[in-house]
């Protein structure tokens, strides 16, 4: 009996449903995503049981790195038309007799992550196009008592936005003295309420433990 020879044909997979699924996932991710801003220093926040989410606006965040550098980040507030960032820079410029151009202010406004540049280097930082040059200037904001620029920043930010809340983001391994110093500087400027940024961790106590 002769064998029936089936025509050999490569199988064809219809990719259309797969494309549909991917499109859905992609749209979902694109809508929910918040781009992770590259911070000038990597910081692993400590854990706590607090479930309060970070406020989206009216915050000034002090990033304290492991090597005791202090970086500052603050946002524009609920209405971006108010543009607090360039105003704060202008205020700081007035204190240090530095005139910033509109272009530099715009550059400062849209800088996406924390800034740790001293006022002396600020102009160079904002004018520089190269990311590596910028990175080299991120030496942390001076907090010495002789040149306490952080304190001036706090005053400048609060002048332009009185509703600002202080957030502290430190690495779990950051030494305590520098944190204490930042807290002291804030307290000297009558900021007594702080938000410590942490990651969520579950912890529970049960009744039996207490009744023992």
């Amino acid at each position: 009996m002769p064998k029936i020879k089936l025509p050999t044909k490569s199988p064809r997979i219809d990719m259309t449903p797969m494309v549909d699924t991917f499109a859905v996932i992609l749209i979902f991710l694109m809508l929910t995503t918040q781009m992770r801003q590259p911070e000038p220093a990597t910081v692993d926040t400590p854990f706590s049981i607090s479930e309060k989410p970070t406020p989206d606006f009216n915050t000034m965040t002090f990033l304290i790195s492991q090597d005791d550098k202090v970086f500052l980040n603050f946002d524009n507030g609920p209405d971006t038309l108010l543009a607090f960032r360039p105003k704060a820079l202008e205020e700081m410029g007035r204190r240090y007799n530095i005139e910033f151009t509109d272009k530099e202010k715009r550059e400062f406004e849209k800088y996406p992550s924390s800034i740790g540049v001293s006022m002396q280097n600020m102009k160079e930082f904002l004018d520089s196009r190269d990311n590596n040059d910028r990175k080299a200037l991120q030496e942390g904001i001076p907090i010495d008592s002789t040149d306490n620029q952080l304190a001036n920043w706090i005053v400048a930010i609060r002048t332009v936005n009185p509703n600002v809340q202080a957030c502290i983001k430190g690495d779990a391994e950051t030494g305590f003295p520098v944190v204490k110093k930042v807290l002291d500087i804030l307290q000297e400027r009558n900021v007594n309420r702080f938000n410590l940024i942490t990651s969520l961790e579950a912890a529970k106590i049960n009744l039996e433990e207490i009744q023992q």
Partner: protein
Amino acid sequence: MAEIIQEEKGKSGGKKRPKKHLPHIDMTPMVDLMMLLITFFMLTTAFNKAKIMEIVLPEKIKDPTKQEAPRISASRTLNVILGPEDKIYWYTGNIKLEEYNNKPPAELLRVTDFSPTGIRQLLLDRNKTLARRITEFKQEVLSGKIPISQDSATSYVSKMKTDDDTGPIVLIKAYKEANYGNFVDILDEMNICGIARYTFVDIAWYEEQMVEKAAGITPTASASAN
């Protein structure tokens, strides 16, 4: 590859007639591209938003002649000192000068750690009544015995804390070799154990020296200058 396009061998001599079938679009490159984008978005997305822990520190007394530090009862005071190497040193009440001079530091300062059997047990022992009331209340809310909204539950708990006058008053101090993680951990323990009254204060010179003696650190120049 999903499809290998085979060349059709045309019959030689016959009249070529275009085959009628639906135009077929190869989706594979599109899938590849989407995969790439999805991978990119998944890696850059920060899914869990960072949480915050609120802390209110007492106002700094700027003029000691006009304002006096608030007085608290020594029997309820629990001093917690964050030491080096994730250790916690603690003592109750206050330390008198003759005690400090005569007793070895091991008797004055007790040492514990951040484990659940360490500082948490210590705080819970001292805060039994309030901690039990808060935990019972929270369980009743969770099990639905008390129909109450999340906000009013929180304010009820904070009212319980304000009304409480049996729990300890915890003074948190930090030795200079402690780290920020310890600070957050101890504040977290306060929240876990439902401590009503706690604050962060500066470490005193004798406490610094006691920690140094207890931990076996040779005192540094900055410590003796204080």
